[in-house]
């Protein structure tokens, strides 16, 4: 396993470095995760964290926007920034020989971005067009509509990029303020995986970020969302579309919930097992031919903030009622009956047997190390995981399904051509 050379180091300023050596290929994956994402957006400023993360590429004290592009692209590297509910990330994939320059750049982006005004105007314009473009993707539309209901009242109700109105209102000062309050070593985890030694990485990080101060950093936690107490249905007309998109959902759990592993087994049995082995795709796709894509998932979105239960199907308008009742029916009967012994065994063998794929590439290992750090999964986790999954029994799966799935107080989102919605 590639984790053999794993090392963890914490600096006095709170910065955490996780590093792992993998010397098979002359490449390295360098990642920074700042634990402030969409959840830290002020309620009136949806999209702020995402725009701030994009602006990291637009200039630093040492490098202009073009310098950053040249540094990465001339070396054939890949640089990306991203924003999720609970974190903002920078990922850099490089040749090992470019590690020093790469880490220096990453450190600059994190600690000394300049947020130039003229680049901000461009990024804001791009974000506005992308927000419009995303409205053309039905799967994005239903997902966003569901979030609006599930996370009502909090910052997670909005799309990651925000809303056209909020993005138009942003000023460069908002971005600078977000960075001042949220980007700090004590709120950052660096993960470096690839053909490099831990000592070398630590030395480079020490030079680049060892003296990064915590300045005005303020910890912030979004208000905890609450499960809805009444059913809701929301419909959206998608003119000229061939299919109707249906999703059913409600608030889920955090990754550290004690039921998490039993819920992973539940997911694999109900809607997110491999191929078409789990109930929803097996019944609705394989046995009834209602859809190409249908699935459900609860644990995949669980993080430091509660994720969501999400069951989805897209089908021809003539199948709308069959798909809706079929999806709901599968969830109801699962809550009622739980898994069969055969389904349970299959899910457990799948989850424990496929665990090894979490460690294939440098980026996979980096993601795993981040998860382990965020959720206090210690060195025994790899050994214990199969045991935790393997000891879940059918009664336990039934118990967590009853507790965490709700077929009464949930939200149904239905989007498609108008004639498919009016019934």
């Amino acid at each position, binding site marked *: 396993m590639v984790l053999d050379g794993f090392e963890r180091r914490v600096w006095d300023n709170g910065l955490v470095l996780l590093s792992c050596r993998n010397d098979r290929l002359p490449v390295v994956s360098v990642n920074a995760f700042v634990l402030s994402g969409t959840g830290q957006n002020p309620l009136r400023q949806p999209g702020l964290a995402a725009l701030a993360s994009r602006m990291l590429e637009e200039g630093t004290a040492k490098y202009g926007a073009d310098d950053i592009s040249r540094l990465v692209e001339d070396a054939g590297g890949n640089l990306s920034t991203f924003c999720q509910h609970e974190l903002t990330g920078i990922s850099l994939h490089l040749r090992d020989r470019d590690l020093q320059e790469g880490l220096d750049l990453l450190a600059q982006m994190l600690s000394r971005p300049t947020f130039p005004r003229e680049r901000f105007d461009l990024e804001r*314009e791009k974000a506005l067009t992308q927000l*419009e473009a995303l409205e*053309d993707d039905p799967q994005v539309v239903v997902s966003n509509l569901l979030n609006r209901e599930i996370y009502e009242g909090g910052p997670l109700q909005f799309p990651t990029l925000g809303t056209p109105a909020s993005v138009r209102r942003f000023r460069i000062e908002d971005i600078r303020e977000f960075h001042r309050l949220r980007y700090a070593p004590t709120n950052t985890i660096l993960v470096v995986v690839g053909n490099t030694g831990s000592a070398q990485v630590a030395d480079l990080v020490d030079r680049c970020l060892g003296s990064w101060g915590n300045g005005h950093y303020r910890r912030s936690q979004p208000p905890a969302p609450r499960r809805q107490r009444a059913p809701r249905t929301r419909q959206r007309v998608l003119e000229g579309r061939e299919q109707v998109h249906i999703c059913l959902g409600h608030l889920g759990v955090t990754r550290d919930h004690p039921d998490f592993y039993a819920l992973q087994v539940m997911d694999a049995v109900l809607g997110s097992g491999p191929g078409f082995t789990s109930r929803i795709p*097996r019944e609705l796709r394989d046995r009834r031919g209602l859809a190409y894509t249908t699935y459900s998932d609860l644990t995949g979105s669980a993080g430091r903030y509660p994720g969501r239960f999400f069951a989805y199907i897209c089908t021809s308008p003539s199948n709308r009622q069959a798909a809706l009742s079929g999806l709901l029916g599968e969830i109801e009967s699962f809550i009622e009956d739980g898994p069969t012994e055969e389904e349970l065994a299959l899910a457990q063998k799948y989850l424990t047997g496929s665990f090894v794929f979490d460690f294939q590439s440098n980026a996979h290992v980096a993601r795993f190390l981040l998860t382990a750090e965020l959720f206090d999964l210690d060195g025994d986790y790899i050994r214990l995981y199969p045991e935790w999954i393997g000891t879940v029994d059918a009664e336990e799966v039934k118990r967590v399904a009853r507790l965490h799935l709700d077929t009464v107080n949930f939200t149904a989102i239905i989007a498609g051509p108008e004639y498919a919605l009016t019934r």
Partner: protein
Amino acid sequence: MTRFRVPPVHRHRLDNGLTLLVRPDHTSPVVTTMICYRVGSRVETPGLTGISHFLEHMMFKGTGRYGPGEIDRITALHGGSNNAFTTQDYTAYFFSFAADRWVCALDIEADRMSNNRFDPRQFELERQVILEESKMEQDHPWGALRRSVEMKAFESHPYRFPIIGLSRDIQALTPEQMLEHYRRYYVPENAVLAVAGDTDPEFTLRTVEQFFQQTASGDPPPVLPPREAENRGRVKINVRRRSRVPRMLVALPAPSIHQSDHDAFQILDRALSEGRLSRLYRKFVEETRLASLVHTELGDTFDPYLLLIRLELREDADLQQTEELLFQELMQLCTSPLAGKELTRAKNQCINQFLFELETTFDQCMQLASMEALQRPGYWDDYVARISRLTAEEVMAAAARHWSGRRWTVGVVESG
């Protein structure tokens, strides 16, 4: 590339004609297998479009030994994953398993190579699934536009048909037609099996022989010789579709994997749209701000196909101006060589992409099996050297050879 050598590939040809490629990689205790049959939309004729893709679906619907759904069940039971996809030129099936249990993939592949069943009830159900897949594809923001552009880009080459097939053809296909298609193309001589991961080449060869030696050679599949590019002249189409932003998809002639210009086109592909220094990003996103997204896609195909350019445009973007600016950018590549730094950058991007793909056993199988299926064995052996040797003049000449006649297809979806 002084310190690193591409890991070796062990190559065998079984007596029945099956080609086996093994790439040992002991980094992680996992193994991926991928079998490719040289059959895709390229061999399809009007009335039978989509039959190769439909067959790919039916390969999970029951064999002599495995009932419907059994292949997925066994995969899950062994903690693995599987899937399949169809291209213009080949159909691929793959499994990934932990290294101590991957051999079950060979058992399944050997069985369904010659014993697949086409139960009429399963066939009808799957037809509905594929029709839904087709509708889903059409509802994707780029789906309808891509289909329209591809159909206009060629006069008569089968590459003009969507891989998924035309809906009226999918509706009319019969199990008997599919059985004939299956028997014609699913024979060892028309297949390549790649295995990458934590396995020993000798053991792998012995095990593959054990599972596949019973598979009869069968009649060799029909040989369809390479066909020349036959793109139409300049064509413009306006696809009617509800859209919040205008989208432009431009299809330009591009060389096949067998033409030496294909390497130069990999450089052009990167120089056009990879990164913020790329030409189209600079022109359309940074300078004119007409677009928020530019993307190019170069296929690896048996016959000459297309370089596709996508532009997601601002609502008020002038489409005529956009097309004209794009034309100027492309013509510049035909008449002026890339600057030294630009060429080096594109080369580094190509080579690094190749290295990053060596990280997973799936990507290694993709590299090996796809090129063998396209009849370009050894493609990757000197890939780095070939890319490194290219000169700016060679890249320019390749662009001029394929683009100078402005034989491109422009498809637009307007907003509204």
